[in-house]
């Protein structure tokens, strides 16, 4: 890898230039200090991996920042109380999901309005901490990737003895149209972002930390560069990357910055890179310097369906409806509400859902945005999807295999290299919901693989049982043969006498039993 990463940029294949719609929510400051909701809903599964284990009971009083569910599983993250109050239930509640809202086990917290903190433990000089100590604190703070993947961050701060991390990339490339929470965070909290980046670099003992932002984020860039200069850490640099969707995709950003591609099915660390979101970096700083766990995040509340689009700092567990209210409410008829951006987000069935760690944007659309101009038509092979695919796939070929359920072909045409960015579906003149097809196909393949594994498992078990049965059978016949041989060698008269004696004993036993 060239030492001077950031001096030269590469270009990933395809991508789109989209209208960014971000100014809608960036022309005024982030709204802080929203009223504390009376009730907070805290799903125990807000991250990738095993759900956290509740450690409170209904009726327990908790303080702000107290652990309510602990992430002690293999890949997991703890959940903390965003405010003080009483746990009223641990039960299923409607929580955000790809399906538009599904029931998920949640800790329901009735707030008391006092917002009383638990004892906190912050460290001023992080450089005195051992890398393991930083990782432990990040883990304790329940920090997950805030760019949307919500992968537990402490795992991505682990050093592998086989692979050295050269570069930590802080991803501030918010390529989805409409979303601006990271841009606003970098403008308003540049010091925590830079410091968090330095902490991560320290934890991974990496050579450098690059903060990547889109080239149109002038203000954020200026502020970040000012902070970096002030701190005087020459291992940290800020790099502008072109505004091309999906530049913020981890694999695309890595290619842009290093010219290298992450191996298929592999991880960035294999080429010496670890990528974290800028908001994750700020959360790491908060956790280490101030002992603040992940209990709030910036959320962009925007779209033509919202009166005053803006960014808000929201406690985890706040109902989406309250965020909309804080931004002036709906403008009128809002047919669709999206969590995430318009390219990769998910439509929600209701706004009665809590903000979770993954919630970066609430997008309210009006009917002009969702109007169908044409029904789904057959693929005409125009190749626009091939031209824009950042994974260098053949989306149209993949679609044909997906549609015909030719799963092995779909696999061999790289369906698992699809990052579901939606570029292909966006440009398709036939308006084919390509990403939906790919998701369904991936699920089908997973299911079949699982079945195959199960079948394999069952086969092994069956074989094992067969072998055991055979072993027992041989043992039994061996035994019989032995008995036979024993009889042969005995005098027949003795054998008869023995049998008569045995029979008498048996009868006597039965007689006694009858009398009882």
């Amino acid at each position, binding site marked *: 890898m060239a030492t001077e990463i950031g001096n030269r940029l590469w270009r990933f294949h395809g991508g789109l230039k989209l209208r960014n719609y971000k100014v809608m929510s960036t022309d005024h400051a982030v709204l802080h200090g929203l009223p504390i909701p009376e009730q907070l809903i805290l799903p125990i599964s807000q991250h990738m991996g095993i759900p956290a284990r509740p450690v409170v009971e209904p009726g327990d009083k908790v303080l702000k920042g107290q652990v309510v569910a602990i992430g002690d599983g293999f890949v997991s993250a703890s959940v903390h109380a965003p405010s003080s109050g009483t746990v009223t239930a641990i039960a299923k509640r409607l929580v955000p999901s790809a399906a538009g809202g599904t029931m998920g086990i949640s800790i329901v917290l009735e707030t008391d309005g006092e917002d009383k903190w638990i004892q906190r433990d912050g460290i001023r000089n992080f450089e005195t901490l051992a890398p393991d100590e930083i990782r432990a604190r990040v883990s304790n703070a329940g920090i997950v990737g805030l760019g949307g993947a919500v992968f537990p961050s402490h795992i991505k701060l682990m050093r592998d003895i086989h692979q050295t991390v050269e570069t930590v990339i802080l991803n501030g490339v918010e390529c989805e149209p409409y979303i601006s929470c990271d841009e606003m965070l970098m403008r308003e909290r540049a010091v925590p972002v830079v410091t968090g980046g330095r902490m991560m670099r320290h934890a991974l003992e990496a050579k450098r930390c690059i903060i990547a932002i889109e080239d149109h984020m002038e203000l954020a860039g200026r502020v970040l560069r000012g902070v970096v200069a002030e701190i005087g850490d020459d291992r940290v640099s800020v790099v502008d990357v072109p505004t091309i969707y999906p530049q913020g995709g981890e694999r695309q950003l890595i290619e842009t910055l290093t010219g290298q591609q992450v191996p298929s099915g592999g991880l960035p660390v294999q080429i010496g890179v670890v990528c974290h979101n800028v908001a994750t970096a700020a959360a790491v700083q908060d956790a280490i310097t101030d002992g603040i766990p992940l209990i709030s995040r910036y959320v962009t509340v925007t779209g033509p369906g919202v009166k005053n689009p803006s960014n808000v700092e929201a406690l985890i567990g706040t109902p989406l409806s309250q965020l909309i209210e804080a931004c002036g409410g709906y403008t009128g008829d809002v047919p669709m509400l999206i969590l995430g951006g318009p390219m990769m987000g998910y439509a929600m069935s209701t706004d009665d859902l809590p903000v979770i760690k993954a919630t970066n944007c609430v997008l309210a659309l009006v009917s002009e945005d969702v109007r169908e101009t044409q029904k789904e038509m057959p693929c*005409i092979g125009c190749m626009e999807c091939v031209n824009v695919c950042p994974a260098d796939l053949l989306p149209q070929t993949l679609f044909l295999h997906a549609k015909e359920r030719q799963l092995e072909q779909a696999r061999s045409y790289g369906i698992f290299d699809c990052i579901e960015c939606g570029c292909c579906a*966006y440009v398709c003149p036939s308006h084919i919901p390509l990403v939906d097809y790919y998701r369904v196909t991936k699920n089908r393949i997973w299911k079949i693989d699982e079945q195959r594994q199960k079948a394999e498992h069952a086969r092994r078990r069956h074989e094992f049982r067969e072998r055991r049965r055979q072993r027992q059978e041989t043992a039994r016949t061996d035994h019989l043969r032995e008995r036979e041989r024993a009889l042969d060698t005995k005098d027949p008269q003795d054998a008869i006498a023995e049998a008569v004696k045995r029979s008498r004993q048996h009868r006597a036993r039965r007689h006694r039993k009858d009398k009882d």
Partner: protein
Amino acid sequence: MATFELKGAPYIPAPTRVQGVMLQVLLALVPGVMAHIWFFGWGIVVQISIAIVFALTFEATMLHLRGKDVRLYLTDLSAVVTAVLFCLCVPQLMPWWVTATGMFFAIVVAKHLYGGLGYNLFNPAMVGWMVVLIAFPRDLTAWLPPLELAEYHFTLFESATIIFTGNIPGELVWDDITQATPLDTLKIQTALAMTIAEIHEDAIFGDFGGLGWEWIANWYAVGGLFLLYRRIISWHIPVAFFGAVMLVDLPFYLMDPDGYLGPLQQVFTGSVVLGAFFIATDPVTASSTPRGRLVYAAGIGVITLIIRRWGAYPDGVGFAVLLMNMAVPLIDYYTRPTIYGHSR
């Protein structure tokens, strides 16, 4: 509590639709058609009208029979594009029933019997053209000369009369009003061992191609550049097609300038320009990988030259397209791009 609709991403209105793509292809053909009228008279207008009527009738019937949404697919304009492209490949005053037959084979056989829009293996317009060329060779060679060389100029009404009744006004016969095309002339004369330079003395040749045809080709190119600019087509097919024609022709031309057309003349005579921008670029029947499109179009270029030089027909673009259509699945298989993260 408000409730909302559920639908998969993306949630930004799509920038294009099939109808829009087809409409732009039609728009891009307007300059070429206008030039055609300018140089050859009104016949093409009548021909296009007939073809469109038959194309849409066949399309609607087939859609109805196949239980498809007639309105949705009829308005996608793909049948209209097929009709216009077909007419640009046939003689101006061809009888109406030949056009109807061509449209039958294009729309019913090549398109719908193969599964309709998006599923056809062969370019429908070229299938229609090939069938009528083989079935009605005489009608398919009755080309008008450019107006500049023609003794008789027909009005729109006269053109229609000829097409519908076969009666030529003023007691004329077909031989009076038709003439060999530049490539016909070339084929016949080279067989008579004349040099290219001598053949080019013929008034039917212009500055760099056939008289009139060269300018129509230029206007096709203008339309093609519009399609490139609008990203309806990519550069791969035109570049590979022109490149193959010129590069393969060049050594032959340099070795024997009397026996072979020069690279530029190869491009501007016959239907290479139309083919490169409008026919080989038919998305459905072309290769579906970027490198595959290069191979596909280069193949068309080479086969065109082979047919022109050694085949029985004066021009070979249509046959070349159909032959390469057959090779598409194979080309696609061997030209898959390297997926991100797989070793190159």
